C-alpha cells in the first residue's frame, strides 16, 4: 500500500430506491493514475455508484470527495451539480449528440469551459489524432461504426482532461473482435493521457485484463478490493471465488487441517484457521485427473461427462456423485480420457482455497 492520498474517496455511501437497496455502506479509495474496475453482476449497484460520482444520483448517506487541483484539499463532490464536477463520464450508450458532427461533439465540453477558440481547436485536433478520428471529424455519429462511436465518446471525455474518467460498460456495445482491440487501446490511452480510469463492467475477463485494481460488488456491497491476481488466488468470500474465474466449489466442514465433505476427509491448507461450514475452491488448473486404483490415491472419484480440446490445452468435466458442481480439470495437450470413463481426481492441498461460509 502506498501512503499517497487517494484521488477519490468514497465513504459509507448508501442509496435505496424504496425497498431496493442499490448501495449499502460502500467505502473505497481510488488512487491517482490507476485503472480501477467496479465489477459485479447486473443490479449489484456498480452503475448507481458511478452515477453518484458523476452527480446523476444522490446518495442517501455517505460522502464522495476528490482531491483538489492543488492535490491537498479534498473537494466534496456531492455538494456540486454534475456540470461543476471535475469528473467525466463515458456513457454505456455513448450518448453522442446526433445533431452534431464528430468535431462538434468533441468541442462541446471545451466550449462550456469558456476556453479560447485557438486552444479549443488545438486540443480537439490533438485528441482526434490520439483516437485516430481525424478523417471522421466532420461526420455525424449516425454514419459511424460502433467502434468509431466508442472512440468519439472517449475523445469527447478525455479532451476535457478530467482527473477522473468514468466509463460505464465501455465495451459492451462492441462485437468480440473490436472489443479485444479496444481493450488494448483503452489501456494504451490511459497510460498516454495519464488520467485515472474507473470502469464499470460485468465482464470479469475485461476487468481482469485491464484493471490495476478491482472492486467486486454484489447486492450493493463491496465484496473485495484487490488486484486481479489476488482476487483470483485469494478470494475474500464464496461470492468472489465463484464470480471470478472458473472453478468448482465443494461444500463441507472445515477443521484445523482437514476438510470434510460428501463423507470423505481431504487434507487442506487452512491459514485462516477456519472451522465449521466452509467451501473448498478448486480451480481447473489445480485439479489433476488420475486413475482410480489405490496407488493413484484419488481424492474423489467420478465419471467424465465432457471433454473439450482447445488446441494447446483441454478440459475435462467430471461428475462426482453427491457433489453439486461439475468438477473441471484443465491440462495441456489433448484429452487423455473419454466421456464415460471412471477417473480419480486429486489436487495439491496447498493450492485449493478454503473459505468460511457465513450462515
Amino acid at each position: 500500500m502506498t501512503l499517497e492520498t487517494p484521488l477519490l474517496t468514497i465513504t459509507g455511501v448508501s442509496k435505496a430506491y424504496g425497498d431496493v437497496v442499490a448501495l449499502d455502506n460502500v467505502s473505497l479509495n481510488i488512487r491517482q493514475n490507476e485503472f480501477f474496475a467496479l465489477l459485479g453482476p447486473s443490479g449489484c449497484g456498480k452503475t448507481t455508484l458511478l452515477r453518484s460520482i458523476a452527480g446523476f444520483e444522490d446518495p442517501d448517506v455517505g460522502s464522495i470527495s476528490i482531491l483538489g487541483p492543488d492535490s491537498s484539499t479534498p473537494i466534496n463532490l456531492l455538494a456540486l451539480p454534475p456540470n461543476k464536477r471535475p469528473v467525466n463520464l463515458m456513457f454505456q450508450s455513448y450518448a453522442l449528440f446526433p445533431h452534431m458532427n464528430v468535431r462538434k461533439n468533441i468541442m462541446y465540453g471545451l466550449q462550456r469551459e469558456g476556453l479560447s477558440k485557438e486552444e479549443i481547436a488545438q486540443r480537439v485536433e490533438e485528441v482526434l489524432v490520439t483516437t485516430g478520428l481525424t478523417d471522421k471529424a466532420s461526420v455525424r455519429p449516425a454514419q459511424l461504426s460502433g467502434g468509431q462511436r466508442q472512440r468519439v465518446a472517449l475523445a469527447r471525455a478525455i479532451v476535457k482532461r478530467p482527473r477522473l474518467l468514468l466509463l460505464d460498460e465501455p465495451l459492451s456495445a462492441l462485437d468480440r473482435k473490436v472489443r479485444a482491440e479496444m481493450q488494448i487501446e483503452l489501456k494504451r490511452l490511459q497510460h498516454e493521457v495519464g488520467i485515472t480510469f474507473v470502469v464499470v463492467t460485468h465482464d470479469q475477463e475485461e476487468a481482469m485484463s485491464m484493471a490495476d485494481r478491482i472492486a467486486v460488488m454484489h447486492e450493493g456491497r463491496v465484496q473485495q478490493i484487490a488486484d486481479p491476481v489476488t482476487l483470483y488466488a485469494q478470494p475474500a468470500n464464496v461470492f468472489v471465488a465463484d464470480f471470478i474465474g472458473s472453478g468448482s466449489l465443494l461444500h463441507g466442514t472445515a477443521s484445523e487441517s482437514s476438510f470434510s465433505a460428501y463423507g470423505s476427509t481431504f487434507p487442506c491448507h487452512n491459514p485462516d484457521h477456519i472451522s465449521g461450514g466452509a467451501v473448498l475452491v478448486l480451480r481447473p488448473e489445480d485439479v489433476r485427473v488420475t486413475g482410480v486404483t489405490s496407488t493413484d490415491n484419488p481424492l474423489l472419484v467420478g465419471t467424465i461427462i465432457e471433454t473439450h480440446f482447445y488446441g494447446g490445452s483441454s478440459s475435462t468435466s467430471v461428475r462426482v456423485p453427491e457433489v453439486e458442481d461439475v468438477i473441471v480439470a484443465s491440462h495441456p495437450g489433448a484429452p487423455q480420457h473419454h466421456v464415460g470413463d471412471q477417473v480419480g481426481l486429486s489436487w495439491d492441498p496447498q493450492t485449493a482455497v478454503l473459505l468460511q461460509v457465513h450462515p
Partner: protein
Amino acid sequence: MSTTTPTSGRGAARRRALIGRTVFAGPGLIYITAFMAIPVLLVLVYSFFQRGRFGGIVWEFTFDNYVRAFEPVYIQVFSNSLVIAGTTTLLALLIGYPTAYAIAKLPARWRTVALVMVVLPFWTNFLIRTYAWIILLNSEGPINSSLVDAGIISAPIGLLYTPGAVIVGLVYAYLPLVILPVYASIERLDRQLVEAAGNLGASRARAFFDVTLPLTLPGVMIGAIFVFVPSLGNFVVPELLGGGKTVMVGNLIRDQFLEARDWPFGAVLALFVISLLVILFAMQAAISRRINGTGKRMSSRA
C-alpha cells in the same frame, strides 16, 4: 433495386414481402386515393375552367382564376390569415412546449392522466366550445367584469369580435395538437444525451437549448403545422369570435363555394392552402433528417 430474378430465393422473398406490404397498405391506399387524391385532382382541374352561373363548371379553359387571386383584396386576406395563423402557432408553441415538457417529466402513471386531460376538450362539440368563448369574452362576461371589479379597467373593453379573440379561440382549439407531438418527441429523447451535456459542463438551461430543443424540433414542427394549417383554413372561429369582421382564407373559400358559387376561384384558393401544406411538410422532413444526421444515408440508399 428492381432486378429481381423470379427464380432466385431472394427475389421470391422480396416479392412475398411486397405482396405482404400491399395487403396491409391496401385499405389505406384505397381510402387515400378515393378521398384525397381524386378530390385534390378535381380541385386542380376546376381551377383552370370558368364558373357556371349557378355554381358548377363551364368547361372553357382559362387562367383568369389564378390572375384574380393576386388582386390586392385577396392578397390582403391571405396576409391577414398568415398573420393570424402565424401568431396562433407561435402562442400555441409557447404554451404547448412547456406543457408537453412538464407532462413528459411526470411519473409514468400521472403522464397518462395528464394526456387524457389534454385531449378531453375534443370530447365536446367544437361549436359549443367556441360559443363558450363568446360568453367569456363579451362585455358582460366574467373576464371583463372581474377586470372592472379589480379596478384594472373602469369600463368593459371590447374583447369579442377582434382579431385577438380569433387568435385566442384558435389557440384554444388547436393547443392539444401541439402538445401531443411535442410530448412524443420529448418523451422519446434519450435522457442520457441531456446528462451527457451536463457532464461536459453545460448548465441545465444550456443543456436544454443545446440538446433538448434541437432534438425535439421535428416534433415542434409537426405541432406547428398541425396548428398553422387548420388555423389558416378555419372559418367557424373567425365568424363566431371575429364577428365576420376578420376574413380569413377559410371564410373566403367557403364563401366561394356556398355563396358566390364561384367554384373555380374557390378551387384556386384551396390549392394555395394545399401547396402551402405540402411545402411545410417537406420542410419539416428535411429539417428532421438534418437534425438526426441521417440525410446522407437516406439519399445513398435511394
